[in-house]
């Protein structure tokens, strides 16, 4: 563990550089530059909230916000894990030439996704202000489920990255899987609209709990119940630990497949 920390410290500048590179190159040659990080989710949210204020009325208070919060959480999960999945393959030329702790590549992509997530988070608050929604003091606690979400996604990303090196068809399979997962998470529909059996299945999806907790803090100003809290914390920690374990077990073989 001590060597792990020493090694991490040695390569911390690399994490920095990789994240800065991701953020910089994404909006290079655009007039507004990094501002797009915030502008992009903001505009998307504006469109969605206009559309869904008049369309699809579920029996929920503030449906546009309900949907937006769901999208912030789910989009982060799907985009960060999808990006993580191909990190080892994308960085193959480097991995073949120079020793770098390989999880750094995965971690850097998750961190840059998390920067986008924070921008979406800020955009959500701006939208809430524009819609004159009540801003609860619990909104500050919204970062807690976000932290769990980042840990959960990093764990899944590490596992996907390790397997995608060996089995490339996971990349295609996973895009289908994320669609399935989206419908198994109450992003666009309320839990109450589900038949009972399906509701149990959706309930044990850790993303559901993370999302419920996030919505509770952000939109409704309520504290999560014990079940939701446990279903947020435990799977996130377990998946993160499992992710590192799987990654470490496989990392010496990556070079043979890339």
């Amino acid at each position: 563990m001590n060597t792990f920390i020493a090694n991490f410290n040695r390569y911390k500048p690399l994490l920095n550089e990789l994240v800065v590179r991701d953020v910089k190159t994404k909006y290079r040659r655009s007039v507004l530059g990094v501002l797009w990080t915030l502008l992009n989710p903001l505009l998307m949210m504006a469109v969605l909230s206009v559309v869904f204020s008049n369309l699809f009325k579920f029996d929920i208070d503030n449906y546009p916000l309900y949907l937006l919060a769901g999208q912030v959480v789910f989009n982060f999960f799907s985009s960060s894990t999808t990006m993580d999945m191909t990190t080892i393959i994308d960085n193959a030329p480097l991995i073949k030439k120079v020793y770098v702790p390989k999880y750094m590549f995965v971690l850097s992509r998750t961190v840059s996704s998390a920067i986008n997530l924070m921008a979406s988070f800020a955009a959500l608050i701006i939208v809430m202000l524009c819609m004159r929604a009540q801003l609860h003091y619990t909104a500050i606690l919204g970062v807690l489920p976000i932290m769990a979400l980042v840990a959960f996604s990093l764990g899944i990303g590490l596992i996907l990255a390790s397997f995608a090196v060996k089995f490339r068809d996971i990349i295609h399979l996973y895009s289908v899987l994320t669609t399935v997962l989206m419908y198994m998470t109450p992003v666009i529909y309320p839990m109450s609209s589900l038949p009972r059996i399906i509701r149990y299945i959706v309930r044990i999806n850790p993303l559901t709990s993370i999302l419920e907790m996030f919505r509770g803090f952000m939109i409704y100003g309520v504290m999560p119940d014990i079940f939701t809290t446990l279903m947020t914390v435990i799977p996130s920690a377990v998946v993160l630990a499992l992710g590192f374990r799987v990654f470490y077990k496989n990392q010496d073989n990556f070079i043979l497949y890339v």
Partner: protein
Amino acid sequence: MEDNNTIISVNDVSMRFNLAREKVDSLKEYIIRAVKGKLQYDEFWALNNVSFDVNKGDSVGLIGLNGSGKSTMLKVIAGVLKPTRGSVRVNGSVAPLIELGAGFDIDLTGRENVFLNGALLGRSRKMMQEVFDEIVEFSELREFMDVPVKNYSSGMLSRLAFSIATSGDADILIVDEVLSVGDFRFQEKCQERIHRMMDKGTTVLFVSHSIEQVEEICNKAVWLEGGKVRMKGDSKEICGIYKQSR
């Protein structure tokens, strides 16, 4: 611990690669073959019980024909490959001369790439700032530092890559066939720099097909053949025998 003078010690290293008879890289095929029991590999030992020590300040040339395991050996020493058996102990920082800037991001400028590349070698931004001017000076790319490297020529790229890798004071420099880049004037400059680093006590590991270069630069040599050490010792002597054997 062995004596402090040993900077790299290679102990009985063997490296096995599994050559798949047919390339299986999809899950479906893997499962089908695993069920049918058809997952077969041809074993290939790229290195076989290789041992040698490198002393501090030595410059060691690895020589041998194509496929003799030179590059595999360097990768094992650089920590890129983990040996199947045996171990490698390295006491010090390694600066691999990554060929033609493998660590460059083509969308970033030369300046940004200096820091990115430095970070890949485990150096902090501050350390790179200290040697930044020296890098610019040596690579002769002052007016191009703020141009994205995708607009660089291959010569410019390798000049920058060489300057970054040899900046700072790494204990061990790994040179793999890179001296064939740039024009002859820059090649001379590179050789001169390697010599200067050696004078300062940097250990150099050198791989080249040009036996003359090995004789020129190195004082020790290890001759690999078919993944085994054929001979090791003084570079003049070994190079002489190697040349006659051809």
